């Protein structure tokens, strides 16, 4: 059970850091709402509801990117990642703790973004909410690992979108599909498969991203 304790410790540390610094969450909230407003003006009057659903996913993916770019900022500014790597805990706990923290931030943003979308564009069905939840799991698990890779590179956040977007394409397909298709369950099952497959891969390979 000590593994889960470590994950809890690390996740709480990130939540406390965010509450104290308060720089990532407000930025993501403002970003997603302003993006939706921009989309409103970008969508021609006659555009049908399906296009709007698609735009919701574009807004979510790029908001997530903003959050992921800041995911390892505390560790990078203080070099504390080395302190965590030196600790006797399993290094995948570092990844899982950070993923949970990023998921909490993303969920907090979506709690605002989805109602705003419903108000601006059109009703948000249960399938969309389920799709957003499942896709967010994939975004956070894979995104956190990719952000750790980006943190090790000289170009820092610049490379994160290049690493993240190809891997996010299946999530967008699953999410949009769940929102608009006649049988959403097929797409939701696909999102679940994505989450499981990539979570296992991240869990097994994170150690090699942060240590030699």
């Amino acid at each position, binding site marked *: 059970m000590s593994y889960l304790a470590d994950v809890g410790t690390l996740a709480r540390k990130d939540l406390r850091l965010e509450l104290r610094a308060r720089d990532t969450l407000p930025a993501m909230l403002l970003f997603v709402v302003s993006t939706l407003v921009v989309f409103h003006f970008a969508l021609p009057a006659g555009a049908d509801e399906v296009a709007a659903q698609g735009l919701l996913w574009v807004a979510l993916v790029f908001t997530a990117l903003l959050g992921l770019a800041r995911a390892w900022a505390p560790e990078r500014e203080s070099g504390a990642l080395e302190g965590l790597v030196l600790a006797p805990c399993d290094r995948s706990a570092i990844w899982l703790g950070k993923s949970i923290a990023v998921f909490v931030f993303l969920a907090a943003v979506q709690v605002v973004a989805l109602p705003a979308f419903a108000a601006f564009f059109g009703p948000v069905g249960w399938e969309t909410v389920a799709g957003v939840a499942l896709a967010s799991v994939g975004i956070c698990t*894979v995104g956190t*690992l990719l952000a750790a*890779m*980006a943190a*090790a*590179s*000289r*170009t820092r956040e610049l*490379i994160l979108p*290049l*690493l993240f*977007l*190809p*891997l996010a*394409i*299946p999530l967008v*397909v*699953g999410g*949009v*599909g769940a929102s608009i298709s006649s049988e959403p369950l*097929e*797409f939701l099952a*696909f999102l679940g*498969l*994505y989450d499981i*497959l*990539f979570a296992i*891969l991240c869990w097994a*390979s994170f150690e*090699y*991203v942060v*240590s*030699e």
Partner: protein
Amino acid sequence: MSTSSPNNPPSKSRVPALAAAAAGLVGLAIVFAFFVAPEDADQGISQRIFYFHVPIALTAYACFGWGAWKALQHLRGKGERYDLESYVAVHMGTIFGSLTLLTGSIWAKASWGHWWLWEEDQLVLFLVLFLFYSAYFMLRFSIDEGPRRANISAVYALFGVVLVPVSFLAIRLAENVIHPTVFTREGPQMTGSMFLTFCIAWLAITTLAYALYRVELLGKRLDANLRELREALTA
């Protein structure tokens, strides 16, 4: 100063033989593709692009798979030369991936009149993979040389191999219009000699890829040895 290269002793190099075999097979494949295989009933002559397009796609998959396999061996700590082999394999995969996109686009224009078809699953998948593996090189060149770069490149290569089936499933799900492809689920719809031509072309392209892979590997190892020699001489 007899220092055999740290990576592997200079084995009796099979590369020239490999290159000769590749050249011969490719020549044979072209002869078969143009003169032996019969004209396709509905697509006419443009169907002959198929004999190179699909083998190139399959070879690109093989290269990505080979790169991931070498990456896995590197992560399991088997030796230091797997990182280089994984890198060259992914590089080869990207070259053949680009060729797949180019020949596929030409085939789409010839057969269906458009340079790009979102209905064509293979093509769309290769576009996604092309984006993914281009980022591999951006990532690799933005990290200083060392075990850290090797580990991160290896992990990224493993992600690629998981992304292929997942993306293929996603594209198949996202597509509402199922497009007639030669390879329908119950296997190739080709007569005897067409299938024979396809197999020869496939063997030819795979041999060509392996030959280029070995040539590039030799070049990279030569670089490494020369650098070490320079280090020794100037130390």
